[in-house]
């Protein structure tokens, strides 16, 4: 008895205060790290912002020799590839979540869920290599000629599918990104799908609903905010993904409407060019790109988090 109490009494309040201070300092450190990242990006990019003003965002010229840096092409490439990624990933992820919660035989659920999560564990550089050496040639040989022939002739959206089938480009990058964000969206969707109160689904079943109706009228409306949160989470990942995109996007600074053409993204431009940036303005422009990326992903991830918090409150969780 005494043995348990004595050391506690001796080392009492002082050690406790020290412990509290250390943990609080670590928590502050996490906060400061994020703030410091934002500030150092803004500071590093100040030369580019003050030189070009808004022209940095709207300018289409990225001319290293002339020292003119307009980031419109990488910004456009980032947005387009991320949009393609979501078009690929969202329906697939919802389908996977539905499969894992409703359809799959019970014994397959664990292994399938782990396999899908492993997609997120594969390093992005592996996606990049596979994309460059295997998937891009596949796209060039099989998918893109078909798209040019059949989609390229449609007035309007046909413009998206014109040009030579070289495999490297926004479409390929977007699809690779889509595969990469599937596990992030699917795991959140699966979690909230399985948190839908069984009574709701059972009522729908008792009324004779089809599985489509249960998904579209019960499960999705009930989990809507979480699904939106999951989509934004996936978007945040897609916007900032670097290596996979760097391999398959082609690092071209020309603006083109066609999805089959090489382009650039913010992250890829930084990865490709930062170590070669030999002037102060060049380096500053790349850091300014990093600042834009950071701000956009911060906003997107904040929306994601707020949406996910909403469903958690609804499910009675405190965090």
């Amino acid at each position, binding site marked *: 008895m005494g043995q*348990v*109490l004595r050391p*506690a*009494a001796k*080392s009492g309040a002082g050690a*406790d205060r020290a*412990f509290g201070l250390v*943990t*609080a300092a*670590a*928590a*502050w450190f*996490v906060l400061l*790290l*994020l703030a410091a*990242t934002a500030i*150092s990006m803004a*500071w590093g990019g100040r030369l580019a912002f003050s030189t070009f003003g808004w022209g940095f965002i709207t300018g289409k010229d990225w001319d290293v020799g002339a020292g003119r840096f307009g980031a419109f092409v990488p910004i456009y490439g980032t947005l387009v590839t991320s949009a393609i990624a979501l078009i690929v990933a969202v329906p*697939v992820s*919802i*389908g996977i979540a*539905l*499969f894992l919660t*409703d*359809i799959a035989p019970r014994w397959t659920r664990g292994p*399938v869920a*782990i*396999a*899908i999560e*492993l*997609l997120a*564990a594969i*390093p*992005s*550089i*592996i996606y990049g*290599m596979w994309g460059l*050496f*295997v998937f891009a040639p596949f796209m060039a040989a099989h998918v893109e000629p078909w798209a040019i022939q059949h989609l390229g002739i449609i007035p309007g959206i046909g413009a998206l599918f014109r040009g030579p089938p070289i495999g490297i480009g926004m479409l390929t990058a977007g699809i690779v990104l889509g595969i990469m964000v*599937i596990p992030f969206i*699917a795991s959140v969707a699966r979690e909230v799908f399985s948190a839908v109160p069984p009574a709701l689904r059972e009522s729908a079943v008792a009324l004779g609903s*089809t*599985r*489509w109706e249960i998904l579209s009228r019960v499960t999705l409306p009930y989990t809507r905010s979480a699904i939106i949160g999951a989509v934004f*989470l996936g978007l945040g*990942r897609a916007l*900032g993904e*670097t*290596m996979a995109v760097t391999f398959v996007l082609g690092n071209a600074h020309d603006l083109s409407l066609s999805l089959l053409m090489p382009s650039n993204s913010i*992250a890829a431009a*930084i*990865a490709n060019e930062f*170590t070669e940036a030999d002037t102060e303005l060049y380096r500053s422009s790349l*850091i300014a790109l*990093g600042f834009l990326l*950071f701000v956009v992903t*911060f906003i997107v*991830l904040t929306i994601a*988090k707020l949406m996910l918090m909403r469903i958690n409150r609804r499910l009675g969780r405190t*965090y």
Partner: protein
Amino acid sequence: MAIRARRRIADISAFAFASLATVFGLFWLAWILFTTLQQGAAALGPALFTQMTPPPGASGGLLNAFYGSAVMIGLATLIGTPVGVAAGTYLAENGRYTRLAAIVSFVNDILLSAPSIVIGLFVYEMVVVTLGHFSGLAGALALAMILLPIVTRTTEESLRLVPDQMREAGFALGQPRWRVTSRILYKAAMSAILTGILLGVARIAGETAPLLFTALNNQFWSASLTQPLANVPVVIFQYAMSPYDEWHALAWAGAFVLTAFVLALNLAVRFLARKGRRK
């Protein structure tokens, strides 16, 4: 009758949609793993682990890259883990219900998904510019910054799962909070925290973007932390982007080893975590 048939089709098509989506997801996993295995196995050999990265056109291995990666991952874990555990402890214990904890928990989730290339730029600005050159230390710090939010999050979650009775029991024995936390709560949450750390290690092992302009790369053997340090992901990147066949083969071999390491760690951790839960 027609309505019934239509509804039946609708029902089956939902089933088909979900099944196809799952097959679609698993298909890519299989394709990527198959490619890595096929290309990587062809380039494997004892030289991979005994020789240095070669100049263009010559044969060699990845010994210096493996060494550099191991050093940086180890150092990043040593730096990131204590800070992350302490921060997670604040969120779940000392600071529970405080506004700071709520804000930090929120910010931590954002840091968790922040673009790793930006983290690389940040460490470049902070460390590389200050020291005046690229270094293995900068690389390790960048990796630690990616590991930190992972450890913080899992520590917070694991501690929250420990029932309050255990805290009350500790306090009832007259123990101060730091002893309750370190002697009782950490023990109860140990396996979950360890799982988080190991998954974090698996994550930083494959990170390339934050190393590009922190650790850079080094073609030669160097054990110095203040010099550019060779590492597997950046070597893969440079060799895969090069026009040389020998370098491509080495990149595939590196990709194979990296993927095998990351997936094995992931599967082992999941297996152990599940076994621990059942117990």
